[in-house]
């Protein structure tokens, strides 16, 4: 069984290592890992280290928040290394070590479903380089050509002389060799680890409670902080009166940090309870009257705005619409959504002199390091960011607002470690919300029902402009128009334009981002067109997919999923199907849902068949898990997810009014993995995209009434409980 090396694991191993005198190992690369003992273990490379006892240490340089990459990324190295997976141990690389080694581990953020697709090449090369060195060491020892030696399952074998040596036996000699500059990577048909369903290495520790999430961080003498920011976004503290709680048992300090208030205590509950009785006069600025209705008016005005940014302009859509035999028009709307990660924002920080240590549940460890150093006012080299498992990330834990707060508090409490933990209320009311978006679709058909023109107009906030403050060339935020500007359908006249409509509600990256909402509009509207043309929704889509390289994958995943779902077969009375097809995060996805709706407007989901073409499916078991999880997450948003604004604040505060999917509402999920090879696509996010439109298309068919906004609770719909 593999023991995942979490923070505690790494320390234990370090202990074993320094207490062992017989260590001889191989580590490949240009930089020496920080804790390695150079005298004992010659080090060459940062990713792979082989101990004399044949245990292979593979380093993982991203975050693990349940997406499974801590297993999949090492699998890629192990594949090229011809490692025996049972002997692989995984350890985190750290952001401070990455800084020290001039980014030997490359990018460390876990965002955009990018871990595998952006790192697979250098990870494969790291594994292959190590393998070549081990083979060369064996060949040297035996005095035979390396070409006659074969590596497999932690061993190098020379068949002619029937000799073999384990990686552990070869590691020390291999480490003295020069790393080959060019290595040949395996042909995918020869893979023995990639493509196999391998259990996630962190599961045993999760189910036995040994895993250390950020929230589990415990340090000697640690203090606890609860925080409250102004309920109106971007408001400030005008004045604060903490006299009621300052002398309470356990209360150490009440801090006015300008942007927020913090109570520091000997335990978190005392801090949190005291915070309720700190009287704060907030300066809410000019945004204290903002409401959902006002935001909708603001979005609607965007629809009539004169100077729109053009994201795509094929042919002449307005002219073609003018000539169309039939014009179909519809508005779609999706709401703001908080992330509601199971573990709220949490960060422990300890400033001692000019040295800072941070334990943050972060998707972006290097960002954590940068923010921590800047906030503490110390050099980046003085910061250590300790890896911890995340209790969910969903995109909320890549921006570092919460780390900044924790370091501000640690600075005020210098010398003491302080764990800052948000309440659920703080998390839901101070999110970086998935933007609400108003989408207008207009399509023109000829007499045969062929779609000749499509005009999509989006009126929505820009995440890139407001959160990342990136310049938007030609005024386009690619996320706001995602899946519109690159729709695959053969519609000669397509116009996509965008009104950037920012509000005081901060927006951010919510799992799948633009693909969490735009495919809902696009694929539901395509269904409306199929209905108007009197055609089967699948045949209608297949007819509109052109015969080109990109669209062949749209076609193949749509065919694979509809085949698995038995599209076209007879359904029981009252059961209806819906379909959708999308591309995003480098992968192609499709979904078929079967539903019935009873007289009480309760939806029964009979089947969810959802599939992906990720090019190469690295760990199919993990893909199934990601898709099942995405359906839970997606159904939560589709049925109930909505943050509304009143008097400048988010109205929802906890799970009673920001409801999650329940066990007895969950349908069975059938996952179709249909990799066509030749590319590496993402897995963590794409499943959200086709789910909402497939489900809503089925529900609309069942009700005989088109639904064009989410969540479904606003249409009086709920789920049948098992």
């Amino acid at each position: 069984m593999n023991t995942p090396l979490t923070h505690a694991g790494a320390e234990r191993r370090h202990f074993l290592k320094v207490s062992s005198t017989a260590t001889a190992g191989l580590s490949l690369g240009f930089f020496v890992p920080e804790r390695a003992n150079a005298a004992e273990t010659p080090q060459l490379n940062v990713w792979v280290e082989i101990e004399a006892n044949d245990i292979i240490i593979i380093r993982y340089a991203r975050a693990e928040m349940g997406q499974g990459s801590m297993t999949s990324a090492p699998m890629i190295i192990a594949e090229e290394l011809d490692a025996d997976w049972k002997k692989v141990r995984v350890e985190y690389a750290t952001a401070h070590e990455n800084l020290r080694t001039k980014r030997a581990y490359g990018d460390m953020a876990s965002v955009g479903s990018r871990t595998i697709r952006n790192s697979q090449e250098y990870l494969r090369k790291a594994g292959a380089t190590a393998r070549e060195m081990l083979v060369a060491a064996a060949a040297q020892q035996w005095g035979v050509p390396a070409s006659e030696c074969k590596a497999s399952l932690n061993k190098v074998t020379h068949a002619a002389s029937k000799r073999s040596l384990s990686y552990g036996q070869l590691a020390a000699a291999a480490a003295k060799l020069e790393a080959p500059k060019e290595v040949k990577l395996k042909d995918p048909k020869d893979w023995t680890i990639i493509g196999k369903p391998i259990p996630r290495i962190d599961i045993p520790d999760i189910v036995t409670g040994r895993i250390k999430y950020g929230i589990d961080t415990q340090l000697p003498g640690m203090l606890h902080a609860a925080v409250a920011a102004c309920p109106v976004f971007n408001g400030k503290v005008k004045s604060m009166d903490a006299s009621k709680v300052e002398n309470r048992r356990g209360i150490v300090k009440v801090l006015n940090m300008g942007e927020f208030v913090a109570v520091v205590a000997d335990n978190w509950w005392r801090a949190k309870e005291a915070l309720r009785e700190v009287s704060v006069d907030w300066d809410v600025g000019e945004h204290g009257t903002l409401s959902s209705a006002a935001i909708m008016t603001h979005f609607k005005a965007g629809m009539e705005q004169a100077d729109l940014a053009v994201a795509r302009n094929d042919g002449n859509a307005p002219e073609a619409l003018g000539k169309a035999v039939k014009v179909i028009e519809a508005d779609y709307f999706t709401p703001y959504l908080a992330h509601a990660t199971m573990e709220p924002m949490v960060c422990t920080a300890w400033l001692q002199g000019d040295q800072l240590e941070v334990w943050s549940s972060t998707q972006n460890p290097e960002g954590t390091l940068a923010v921590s150093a800047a906030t503490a006012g110390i050099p980046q080299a003085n910061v250590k960011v300790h890896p911890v498992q995340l209790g969910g990330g969903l995109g909320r834990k890549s921006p570092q607002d919460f780390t900044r707060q924790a370091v501000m508090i640690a600075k005020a409490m210098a010398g003491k470690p302080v764990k800052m933990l948000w309440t659920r209320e703080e998390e839901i009311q101070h999110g970086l919300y998935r933007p609400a978006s108003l989408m207008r679709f207009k399509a023109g058909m000829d007499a045969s029902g062929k779609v000749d023109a499509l005009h999509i107009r989006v009126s929505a906030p820009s995440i890139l402009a407001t959160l990342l403050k990136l310049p938007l060339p030609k005024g386009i935020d690619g996320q706001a128009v995602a899946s519109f500007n690159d729709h695959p359908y053969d519609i000669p006249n397509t116009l996509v334009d965008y009104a950037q409509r920012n509000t005081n509600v901060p927006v951010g990256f919510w799992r799948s981002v633009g693909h969490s909402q735009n495919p809902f509009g696009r694929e539901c509207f395509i269904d409306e067109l199929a209905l108007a043309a009197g055609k089967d929704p699948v045949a209608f889509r297949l007819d509109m997919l052109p015969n080109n390289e990109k669209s062949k994958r749209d076609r193949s995943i749509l065919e694979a999923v509809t085949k698995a779902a038995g599209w076209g077969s007879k359904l029981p009375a009252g059961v209806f199907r819906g379909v959708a097809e999308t591309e995003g995060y480098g992968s192609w996805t499709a979904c078929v849902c079967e539903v019935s709706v009873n007289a009480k407007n309760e939806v029964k989901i009979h089947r969810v068949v959802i599939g992906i073409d990720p090019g190469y499916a690295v760990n199919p078991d993990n893909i199934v898990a990601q898709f099942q999880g995405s359906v839970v997450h997606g159904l939560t948003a589709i049925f109930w997810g909505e943050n509304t604004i009143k008097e400048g604040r988010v109205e929802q505060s906890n799970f009673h009014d920001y409801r999650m999917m329940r066990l007895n509402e969950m349908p069975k999920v059938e996952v179709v993995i249909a990799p066509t090879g030749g590319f590496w696509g993402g897995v963590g996010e794409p499943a959200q995209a086709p789910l909402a439109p497939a489900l809503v298309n089925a529900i609309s068919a069942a009700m005989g009434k088109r639904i064009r906004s989410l969540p479904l609770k606003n249409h009086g719909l709920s789920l049948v409980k098992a």
Partner: protein
Amino acid sequence: MSVSDAYAPSRRRWLQHSASLGLAWATVQASSAYAQKMESGELKTLAQMISPITQGAKLLQQDVSISAPVLADNGSLVQLGVHVQSPMTVQDHVTHLYLLSQRNPVTRMAVFHMGPWNGRAEINTRVRLAGTQAVVALARLSSGEFRYAQADIIVTESACVDAS
């Protein structure tokens, strides 16, 4: 030395430097800004950044130092300090200090006008960067020659943007 002469070795150095920071060219180009098809995602060459200003005048990579963090969590606010070794006398001083961005829509982020009255050729400021890139500090001397330094700044990936 002409600009093209200066460019050749410095470009090699630049690539080496970039590679050492994990900034292989392909990696930089595959980053989110580029994949968003943002015009600012295109990385300029050193010559494209500098030549419009130097116009063929003598250029050396010396006497200028940049202090900036290696990592920035967000490009919206990056602290940058530049110091130019110069006596700042009437005879020999820095007249202009340019801050140039490799990736921003506007390459010339700032121009500081200087003279002997400054005493020291040193500035501290904050700049906004549209993603990971090299930043160049270019000093025009009273002699008409130029000096420069460059720094790679990593804007960490904090975005779940679809970079496919």
